[in-house]
């Protein structure tokens, strides 16, 4: 079944049907999430109103790691099975992951200034997220360097898998080193340490942003399939013109 769904033409059909539903669901959840985050959630006893930045910063951080992991899984699909949709998935995921990593860095800095007294410190969590952003930039640059999409996909796959070593470093940096950044407060073995009045808006925003990112990923995958068809047709047209000129 997966092989059939992953056929590019079949993918274009089912993703085209799913997109309007995903867009509607994303907009609905974002509206609920923003209402809960900005109006319903109480101010934190220590952070005050600044806690509202967390409702967008934390989902951005999750998605930064999620999309790098998606790229790594797709990279395995490219290198092991050489599936064209794996190449397409990798390429479509890179700008989305880069955007959310940038959003994570910017919102983190804007939270850090009033809370820590500085926009930036070179602690393990912040530095490893910056390295993640640079990895995304490297991946995006490499895609643009090699013209043939299949060759580019193989080169990018290797770079992505090498860079994947940074993902657990980002996640566990707050446990392995002494950092100014607070430790994990949602995904913990002993359960979340956040009060439900703040946890619920955070979870709604996390699901809403994840849906938004998945919708964008599907949309960009569709665009990438079209781009490859355009490339194939352009080459075919050039060959036809060459033959005509030679005759």
């Amino acid at each position, binding site marked *: 079944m997966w092989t059939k769904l992953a056929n*590019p033409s079949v993918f274009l059909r089912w993703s085209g049907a799913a997109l309007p539903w995903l867009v509607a669901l994303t907009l609905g959840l974002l509206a609920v999430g923003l209402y809960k985050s900005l109006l319903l959630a109480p101010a934190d006893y220590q952070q*005050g*109103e600044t806690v509202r930045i967390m409702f967008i910063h934390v989902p951005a951080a999750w998605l930064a790691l999620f999309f790098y992991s998606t790229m790594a899984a797709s990279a395995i699909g490219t290198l092991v099975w050489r599936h064209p949709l794996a190449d397409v998935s990798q390429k479509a995921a890179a700008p989305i992951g880069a955007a959310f990593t940038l959003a994570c860095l*910017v919102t983190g800095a804007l939270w850090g200034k009033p809370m820590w007294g500085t926009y930036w410190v070179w602690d393990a969590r912040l530095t490893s997220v910056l390295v993640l952003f640079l990895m995304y930039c490297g991946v995006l640059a490499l895609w643009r360097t090699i013209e043939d999409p299949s060759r580019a996909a193989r080169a990018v796959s290797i770079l992505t898998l090498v860079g994947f070593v940074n993902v657990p470093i980002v996640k566990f940096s707050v446990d392995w080193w002494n950092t100014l950044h607070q430790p994990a407060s949602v995904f913990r073995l002993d359960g979340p340490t956040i009060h439900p009045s703040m946890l619920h808006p955070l979870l709604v925003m996390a699901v809403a942003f994840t849906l938004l990112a998945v919708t964008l990923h599907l949309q960009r995958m569709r665009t990438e399939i079209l781009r490859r068809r355009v490339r194939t*047709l352009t080459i*075919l*047209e050039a060959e036809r013109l060459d033959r005509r000129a030679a005759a």
Partner: protein
Amino acid sequence: MLGPHGAFILASYAAMALIVGGLIVASILDHRAQLRALADLEGRGVRRRGGDEA
């Protein structure tokens, strides 16, 4: 309403809207450009030899 650090909160939400909005707009424009290019080529009679490769 947003306390003494309201500017930081608003700037965070604005930055997020700008980054995500930019990504959405870029994605839509890119998709439209590919659709136009494909329609252009097909309009000139260029067809694939067959197959569903991406």
